[in-house]
């Protein structure tokens, strides 16, 4: 047994307390979208860092040492909630005891959320696809931040207005697409809020769950609807292999109606450098532009 004791002492010595405490408030956000928004709201006394870099699927995020340090040193943690961050949700619930943790989606009134499984009252967490809803959640966050007086009134005022304009712009753009063709088809069913907000029919091959697998019948149904309603384009997502949607496209071509691959939409994460979708606003603009180009 003396071996084991020796080893344990070794472990103890080898760990040093990490970086020293500055005076600014440290804010850590889980997804890129939240980080982008918070940076525009808080004043310079805060440092804002994002756990999940661009192009990281929040469901399957695997924490590293640096994410651990970020979380343990953070004063405020802002997360999306409704189990978007998978297992991390339980951890953030526990962290509530020692740190201030906000779950954006869980602050919104229930009736505005889309139910994904009525029996167990589980909601669809992808709220940022409805710009107005996203703005409301940020307003609620703003009022919480005001109590901690870390808010940069001017820039948050500016940012919320720009979100307001963005919302109107999206509504106008989508309205220009003829209603018959206003159908958003992707591999992954994450755009229901977008469909609700801008009265666009949303069809996905596979539900939200990453492990569930669509069947052959789902593919054929999708092909039939596309051919019947002559939907000009279907879209692929950055985090899913395009193969599934290609099968739908080639199915339609064989049926005499060639729908096009309308380009890549950014769903669960912001786009990488130089993709034109580095911030939330750019991402929404990019997505809407791609949709409009495809479905016009």
């Amino acid at each position, binding site marked *: 047994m003396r071996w084991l004791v020796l080893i344990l002492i070794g472990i103890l010595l080898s760990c040093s307390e990490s970086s020293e405490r500055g005076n600014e408030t440290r804010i850590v956000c889980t997804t890129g979208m939240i980080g982008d928004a918070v940076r525009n709201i808080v004043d310079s006394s805060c440092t804002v860092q994002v756990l*999940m*870099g*661009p*192009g*990281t*699927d929040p469901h*399957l*995020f*695997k924490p*590293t040492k*640096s994410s651990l340090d970020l979380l343990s040193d953070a004063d405020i943690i802002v997360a999306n909630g409704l189990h978007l961050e998978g297992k991390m949700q339980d951890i953030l619930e526990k962290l509530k005891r020692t740190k201030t943790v906000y779950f954006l989606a869980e602050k919104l009134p229930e009736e505005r959320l889309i139910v994904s499984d009525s029996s167990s009252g589980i909601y669809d967490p992808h709220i940022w696809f409805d710009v107005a809803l996203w703005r409301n959640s940020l307003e609620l966050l703003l009022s919480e931040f005001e109590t901690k007086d870390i808010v940069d009134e001017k820039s948050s005022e500016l940012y919320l207005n720009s979100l307001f304009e963005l919302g109107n712009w999206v509504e106008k753009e989508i309205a220009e697409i003829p209603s018959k063709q206003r159908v958003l088809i992707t591999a992954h069913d994450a755009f229901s809020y977008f469909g609700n907000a801008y009265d666009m029919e949303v069809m996905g*091959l*596979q*539900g939200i769950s*990453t492990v*569930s*697998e*669509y*069947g*052959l*019948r*789902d*593919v*054929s*149904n999708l*092909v039939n609807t596309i051919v019947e309603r002559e939907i000009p384009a279907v879209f692929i997502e*950055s*985090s*899913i*292999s395009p*193969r*599934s*949607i*290609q*099968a*739908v496209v*080639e*199915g339609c071509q*064989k*049926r005499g109606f060639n729908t096009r691959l309308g380009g890549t939409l950014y769903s*669960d*994460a912001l*786009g*990488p*450098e130089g*993709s034109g979708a580095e911030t939330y606003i750019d991402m929404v603009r990019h997505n809407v532009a791609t949709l409009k180009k495809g479905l016009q």
Partner: protein
Amino acid sequence: MLDINLIWVLAGCALIGAGSSVVGVFTFLRKESLVGDAVAHSLLPGVVLAFMLFQLKSIWILFPGALIAGWLSLLSISGITQYSKIKPDTAIAIVLSVFFAVGIVLLTNVQQGTYGNQAGLDTFIFGKAASMLPSEINLFILVDLILIGTIFLFYPYLKLFVFDPEFSRAIGLPVRLLNFLLSTLTVLAVATGIQAVGVVLMAALIITPAAAARFFTNSLKALIFIAVLIGVISSVCGVMISYTAPSMPTGPWIVMVLSLVAVFSFIFSPKKGILSRYLLRKRHLVKMTDENVLKAMYHITNQSHKRAVGITVLSEARRFDGQQLGASLKRLLKSNEIQRENADIALTEKGNERAARVVRLHRLWELYLNKRMNIAEDHVHNDAEAIEHIITPELEAELVKDLGYPESDPHHSEIPGIKSFRK
């Protein structure tokens, strides 16, 4: 016009089913059937490295990366087993877990880095069975041709190598080359298959058809043929089931059908199946009780020289239990080997003849045991009781000839009906 996607998926799955079943037979016989799962896990580092080098998420870059990683994993598995006392299943578990961990380390490193569009990299190359592309069908045809072609070409060497590696090494077969060839075929089948149908379906297509086929035959040729048959048929059924209703995943349903076919063959296969052995035994028990009833009636009527026998007399003679006796009498009535004579029952012509045969076989076997196998007279009775119901007519004729048309058995009771064999 039949749904084109259905045709592609049917063709794709059937082709993958065939190719992987053939490879599966060889991995099954080399006790390495979990190699499919190991290769599937080992592809991740290859994919992530390829992505890190080329910063592009296209199948044409990631797939070769996966192939190389798969190859490396198989080579390290055979390397570990060859150069140390570690057993194959442990070697597979080691390679699988370490390669996958390396993949995750690279992936999480990439996640922090500036690459950006690496989302979904770990599931990028794992496809779903329901979305089959026409271009892939040609790829599968090519791969199947390579697989079945090479195996056909090297069949005799592979057969020897699989059944007796030591002997093939002894007679100078290039064992390391054959091992390398089999590993390459396995990686080729797994890597192409995974890209279309995903990890678990691929692992199942390698393991289950061969395991199920093993219950029907012992010859390698037949094993391959049956395995391919099972692989293809299960794929087709799985696809059709998943075509019936929405949100019925195609891949998992193929695995479901495969596993049910396997379990079915474990239970029902004529030679080794559990239930078929049980049913056979049950049917034989019924035949045995009926013949015992007839034999008892034959003895009683001979001693008492009366045609009819009382049921109670009958049941005491052989300590039959009532219920079994009743059922047996009903059956014999139906096959008119016995007939009712008011309260009693009597043997019909047909019944009498069958009874005589049973007695003859009994006594012949007693004689055989005693003379040929010098087992004492008092020990032969029980055995004869069992064997009398089994001996087929040809064996019976041979037995009579072998024993020189004997008139009486070791207990000197007369053997009925010997004269009919004399001609």
